Structure formats: C-alpha cells, structure tokens
C-alpha cells in the first residue's frame, strides 16, 4: 500500500508536503525548534561547547539505535543491548590495559558483539523462542556475569592510543560524530536499495509473503542480529573511549534509551516500517532533551519519565495513523 502511494505521488504537489510531514522531517524540526526555544530561555544552552558535548556524549546511542532499528523493523526486539555494550566495553578495555595491540582490543569488542547477538538470533529464529524471552535472559546473564567477574572494579590507566573517541577529522569533526553519520548513511542506503536490506522490511512486514518470495526468514533474522551486534560493538568502543575510565558495570537502562530512539525515530513496533535516519535524529533529540532539562532548571531525574512519554505518544500515534490508513 505504501509502495502504491509513493508511485502514484510522482508529480503530485502534495508530495512535497508529505516529505515535510515525514517522521524524519518532524524530528529535524523538533531538534532545531527545541534548540531555539531552550536557547531563548537560557542562551548558555547554545554554546558550541554544550552542543558538541551533547553530540559527542551520545553518538554511541545513535550508533546502537541503528542496529536496534533493524531488529525492530524485522519484527523483533532486543533488551540485552545495554548490558552487552557494558560487557564489550569492559572486554575491550581489559585487553588494552593488559597490553594487547590496540587494534585487537577494538576488534575484540566487534567480534564478541557479533557472536553474542548472532547466538541470540539463532535461538530466536531457528529454535523459535520469542525475542523478549531470549534477550531478557541474556540481559541478566550479561549483567550478572559482568559484575561477578569484574567485581565492579573500574578500569583505569587506559593507553592513550585506545581512545578512539579522541580522533578528529580535519581538526573539527570528532570521530564519534563522524561514525554516527557514516553508519546512519550506509545503513540507510543498504536498507533501502539492497536486496538483503529490503528483506528485513519484507520479513517484518509480512513473514509469510516474504517466505513465498524466497526470502529465508530465519537467515534474515540471524543476519539482522549479527549486524546489530556489530553496531553494539562499535557503540561500546565509543562508550568505552569517551572517558578515561571504564566503569565495568552495565549502564543502567541504556537499552531503554536505545529503544526509545528507534521507536521515536519512526520505526514501527509492528515491524516492516522505519528508517535509521529517523532513529539517529531521535537519538540526538533525546540527548538534547536530557541536556535541556538542566538548562531550564528541571531536575534531570525526570529524563526517564520523558522517555516513557515519548515512546508512548509515538507508538499510539503510529498505530492510530495505520488504522486511519487501513480505514481509508
């Protein structure tokens, strides 16, 4: 149905309106609008230093949200990603401190991320256990495992070359922001134009139809989870290298922030719809809101409630919109 609407709208002047009303455009407007509004209330919010801190400190959430968006588009969910990021950061940091070559320390996070997520994908796709059960179980395995192995000790004395997040391009583009943009663009193009990328939408939209088209649903799900693990690994590296210490505990409720970014970014929780451009913009918006709370003298303890309301409103709006489309 979406395909029909798009094809028919070729020369329609309303198409321009439609682009403006898309989730991505709305989010971009929200990001800029919020910045202006908060800036008027408290000009210090617009200081370059603050804005770049917001972007730098939260780029890893956007990177992880790209993988999460793929998972949700395929009709699944993953609540273990926050714990996994904590584990991967610790693995990478421990290797770096113990004298492993930096590249090995970086690669280890990526490989371990892919391995854990692919394993979950196999259990979900081939043994047909609901994603929520598998990832809830994995969440506690990773969380409990990390604390009992490290005892909650912080990793310090990381070698300087380990800090991926310190790299800057052209003296102004920090690596986390560069990676966030690069990953978003590549993933968006891949999901839109390649056969394997389209398969994710097919599986999430209508698994039976996808099967009849010759798409292997289990294989697609495993692929999506493996990729999600790769992005989680990249996110873990950004997370681990932005500070001088790694806390060796699971960042609390990180998975909720990542899921919020994906859902608010327009990824439909019913599967089959959504883009990673939206999820990245939403990640930026959420980070901006968290920072704005401080500047408008609201306690940052409210941020989680704001996230909850954001998910709730987007999900309800998405479902009502779909119902109206189906009714029309």
């Amino acid at each position, binding site marked *: 149905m979406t395909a029909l609407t798009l094809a028919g709208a070729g020369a329609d002047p309303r198409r321009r309106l439609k682009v403006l009303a898309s989730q991505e455009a709305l989010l971009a407007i929200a990001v800029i609008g919020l910045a202006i509004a908060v800036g008027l209330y408290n000009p210090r919010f617009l200081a370059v230093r603050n804005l770049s801190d917001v972007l730098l400190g939260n780029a890893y959430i956007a990177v992880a949200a790209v993988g999460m968006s793929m998972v949700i588009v395929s009709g699944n*969910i993953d609540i273990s990603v926050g714990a996994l990021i904590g584990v991967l950061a610790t693995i990478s940091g421990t290797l770096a401190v113990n004298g492993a070559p930096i590249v090995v320390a970086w690669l280890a996070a990526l490989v371990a991320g892919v391995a854990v997520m692919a394993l979950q994908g196999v259990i979900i796709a081939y043994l047909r256990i609901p994603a929520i*059960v598998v990832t*809830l179980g994995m969440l506690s395995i990773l969380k409990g495992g990390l604390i009992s192995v490290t005892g909650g000790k912080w990793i310090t004395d990381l070698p300087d070359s380990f800090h991926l997040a310190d790299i800057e391009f052209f003296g102004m583009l920090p690596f986390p922001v560069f990676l966030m943009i690069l990953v978003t663009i590549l993933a968006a193009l891949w999901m839109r134009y390649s056969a394997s990328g389209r398969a994710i939408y097919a599986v999430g939209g209508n698994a039976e139809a996808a099967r009849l088209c010759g798409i292997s649903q289990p294989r697609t799900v495993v692929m999506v989870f493996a990729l999600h693990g790769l992005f989680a690994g990249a996110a873990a590296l950004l997370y681990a290298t932005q500070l001088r210490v790694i806390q060796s505990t699971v960042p609390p*409720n990180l998975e909720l922030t990542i899921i919020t970014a994906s859902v608010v970014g327009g990824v439909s929780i019913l599967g089959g719809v959504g883009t990673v451009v939206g999820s990245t913009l939403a990640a930026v918006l959420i980070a901006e809101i968290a920072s704005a709370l401080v500047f408008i003298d609201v306690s940052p303890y409210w941020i989680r409630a704001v996230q909850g309301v954001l998910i709730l409103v987007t999900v309800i709006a998405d479902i009502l919109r779909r119902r109206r489309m189906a009714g029309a």
Partner: protein
Amino acid sequence: MSEIPLPQVAKRVVPWWLIRHETMLALILLIALIGLGSLNNRFLTLDNLLNQGRLTTEVGLIALPMTFIIITGGIDLSVGSIVGLCAILLGYSWKVFGFPLPLAMCFSLLVGAAAGFLNGIVITRVKVPPLIMTIATLALYRGLAEGISQARSVRGYPEWFYFIGQENLFGVPAQLWLLLIAIVVSAIVLDRTTFGRTLYAIGNNETAARFSGLAVDRVKLIIYTLSGLMAGLSACVLVSRVTTTRSDMGIGYELDVIAAVVLGGTSIFGGVGTIWGTVVGLAMIQLLKNGLALTGVKGDATIVVIGAVLILSTLVASSLQRKREGV
C-alpha cells in the same frame, strides 16, 4: 463415529498426573531440596525455608496475575517499575502529603491499579502490543518514581507497619499468609470460573474467543489492572520488610516473575499454564537463589543462573510442545 480412533489414553503405563509439567517440576524440586540439604545443613531447616517464603512473597504476589497475563499470550514488563513507583508514593504521601499510613498504603495500591489500568486500556483500546506498551511504561513508571523522589529515600515508619514484612503470624511469616490467600484465590479463579477459562480461550485463539462472545477486552483490562494492583501490594510488603523506600526498588522483578511463571510450565505463547505450576516455579527460583547463596555464590552470579534458566526452560517447554503437536 466409531471409525475415529479414540485417543490412546489406556495404553499409557505412567499415570497422567505424573507426566504433567508441574509434577515433573515438583519432583525436580524435591530432588534439589534433598541435594541442597545434604550439601549444607543450614538449608533444610524450617527456619530457613520459612525465611525463603518471606523473601519470595514480593515476587510471588506479582507472579500470580502474570500467570493470567501470559496465559492470554500477553506480557507485563512494567511490574518492577510499578513496584518502584508505588513504594515511592507510599513513602511520599505519608511523609510529604501527611497521609496517615493506612491511607498511604491504600493510595499506593490505588496508584498500582491505575498504572496497570493504563497498560490495559491502551493495550485493549489502541491495540498496542503488550510487550511494547509495557516497555514504554517500564520507562515511564520508573521515571516517575525517580522524578518524584529526586533520589531521596523515606525512612522512619511507625513500628506497627513492620509487622507485615518482618513479624510472624501463627508461626509463619505474616506476608506469607497474604501470598497463600492470593494463591488459593487465583487458583480457584483460573480453574473454576468463567473468567479463568476465558483466559485460556484468549490465549489459544483470541479471534475465536471474540467471536464466541467472550468479553476479551474487559477480561484483559481486568488482568493488567490486577497486575498493577498486586505490584502495589508487593511494594507495601517490600517497604515494610526493608524499612525504607527508594526509587530503584523492584528493578529486575520482571525477570524473576517471568522466569518463575515460565519455569512453572506456563507457555510464553499463551493458552497453557496453571497457578500450581507458577507456585512450584517460584519455589524453584527462590531455592535456587538460596542454595547458590549458601554454597557461596554471590547475588550477581545468581541472576546469571536465573537468566539461563529462563531461556532453557522456554526451550525445553517449546520443544516438548512441538513434539506433542507432531510438528
């Protein structure tokens, strides 16, 4: 009619009740009890077992409505956050609003029910999948608890309030009576009432249940509200036991609750499950925790085991079910 072969019940050598999931689980439980008892002589004492009952009450109270919800094919991930929100509001309304404590307790139960009602109303009216709705409110209710409390705790409750959480009634921990009553009532409701049978009908085939004229939406609304209410009750018991309120109370409860229900033989796909199974599942989880603790395993490692138990028991249950159905 006579040509249709009857199910071959008579051929079975083992009686039917022995191969039920609950019975097998109870047997495993018995073996585990004896095994742990022989490993550690502090384990198999009445004091220890009653104390474990005390500790399992908070999770147990929530596991009962969760059994109802999972039987219908739904799930409620927000229970831990509701516990946190209710605990905070119990302390806050008592300390800041100056409510008398009994009123504050009623208020916190009411908030729990309202939180569950919000889940239920959006799930039934807007048709948001329960998983997503309760992930959203998992964030929302925890966020409200954090925002309202501003990370401050409330202490210093009157002495009588600690009775529920710390004292004994007729030689048994006071809160265990609450749990026992709740278990009996839930078991009767699930097994002997139209309401209970409707839950199975919804879980087996929701569309068919709807076309059979069952009040599917009303029943769902009731069970999600009940889930919130019981989370509120659990919060009161928890606060009374640990004598303080903090906004991080109840974090991770959803894991224990869902693990107990699923371990107890309730199918995560809906349509199958019993209260007795959940009770045995609860006992297994608590004894696992206790047994591991007594053998020197730390709390953080225990959740590793519970996570693995959750995945493995679902795997076993679903492969058994597939075998039964001959798929």
